[in-house]
């Protein structure tokens, strides 16, 4: 079975006042479906940039990205919309990855609303299911991020699925 995600000679350079910064320099790897790939390195070695390039939060400078066998390096906005329903990012800092002004429920159903595939009733039902899935107490449905500690905030960031 071809790899779920494959990256070939991926490069990402940033122009900085002090010249070209080689954040990601010729990286290649492949991940089978269901497997977990660990990327280890000191801060500033380009780990997060690599992740952001793969899910198109940042454009790549060179190299190719394959998802389910298809080349998605130069995905246009329509392809991107489809892609982003299958690729999710969970962030490092629980204190800045949630919109402080949205409740737990609003945060979880945000992608559902954007995908326009769910009626509002379906959204809240789905929200309930997702909260149970990631182990968040139902009574925290209307809580705001500032009322939660780091652990729970990360769980709220988890679902974000829109399929």
């Amino acid at each position, binding site marked *: 079975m071809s790899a779920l995600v494959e990256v070939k000679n991926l490069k990402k350079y940033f122009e900085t006042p002090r010249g070209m910064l080689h954040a990601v320099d010729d990286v290649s790897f492949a991940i089978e479906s269901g497997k977990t790939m660990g990327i280890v390195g000191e801060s500033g070695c380009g780990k997060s940039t690599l992740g*952001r390039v793969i*899910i198109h*939060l940042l454009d790549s400078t060179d190299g190719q990205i394959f998802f389910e066998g298809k080349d998605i390096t130069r995905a246009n906005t329509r392809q*991107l*919309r489809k892609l*982003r*329903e299958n*690729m*999710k*990012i969970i*962030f*490092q*800092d629980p204190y*800045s*990855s*949630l*919109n*402080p*002004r*949205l409740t737990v429920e609003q945060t979880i159903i*945000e*992608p559902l609303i*954007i*995908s326009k595939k769910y009626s509002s009733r379906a959204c809240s039902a789905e929200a309930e299911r997702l909260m149970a899935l990631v182990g968040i107490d139902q*009574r*925290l449905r*209307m*809580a*705001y991020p*500032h*009322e*939660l*500690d780091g652990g729970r905030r990360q769980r709220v*960031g988890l679902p*974000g699925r*829109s399929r």
Partner: protein
Amino acid sequence: MLDSSELVATPKSVKKQSQLAVVLRRLAKNPSAVIGLVVVVLLVLMAVFAPLIAPYPYDKQNLLNTRKAPSSEHIMGTDELGRDIFSRIVYGSRYSLSIGFLAVLFSNIIGMTLGALAGYFGGLVDDIIMRLIDIIQSIPGILLAIAISVVLGPGFINTLLALGFGAITMACRLMRASVLGIRHQEFLEAAVSNNASTFRIITRHVIPNSFAPVLVGATMSIGNVIMSAAMLSFIGLGIQPPTPEWGAMISGGRALIRSCPWMVTFPGIFIMLTVLAFNMLGDGLRDALDPKLKK
């Protein structure tokens, strides 16, 4: 320094703590904010119901008792044309309040948009807007207002535009600063990765998290605009007599300061009261909206 991690109280029963409820609850606990709010509401009521409150029509001249000291009949005395000063002050509140609100509203709408654009997009957009703001800001506000209103001429709308123009810079700076503050927060990247459109990102994620300081700034600048409007009328610009604008009244009473000081004192007290109320409200709002106190 208080170690905040030791104070994280897990929510016992999470009542519906909407953001607004939290802010209002904290605002209510702050006495000066409450006083400020009460005075502002009273002033607005006074302006709206001016005809009922004012004992005399503001322009009714009574040449029999001109320059009368405060008496039971005229609690704040009369001016050189025998008009009742208290009535003129009551009607005058309409001009001061409406100039304050409208000028700040007009300038903040423009200022916030410019600030959001500069903060969110950065790069060339940011440079152009900010260089322009730098130049406008290097002319002290009132001088700018003077220059504009000299050319525009007196009158309500002209004064409003003259005062509003200067206030754009503060609203823009405040908005840009707070947008820059959250610009690199990860929840914006999360929104992008959730296929949110730029419009949705700005309206649902960026603005709700950055308007707080702008709101505080706006409340304070209402007071400043009212004071500047009075100053403009005082030096012969802005709203002209016979309209009962507080600044113009003080300017009118200036020559008679020796013989009838009440003509100058009472309008000034009302200006001070109004500006003080907005400033107290602004201080209260700043503490209530202060994220650090959010926990």
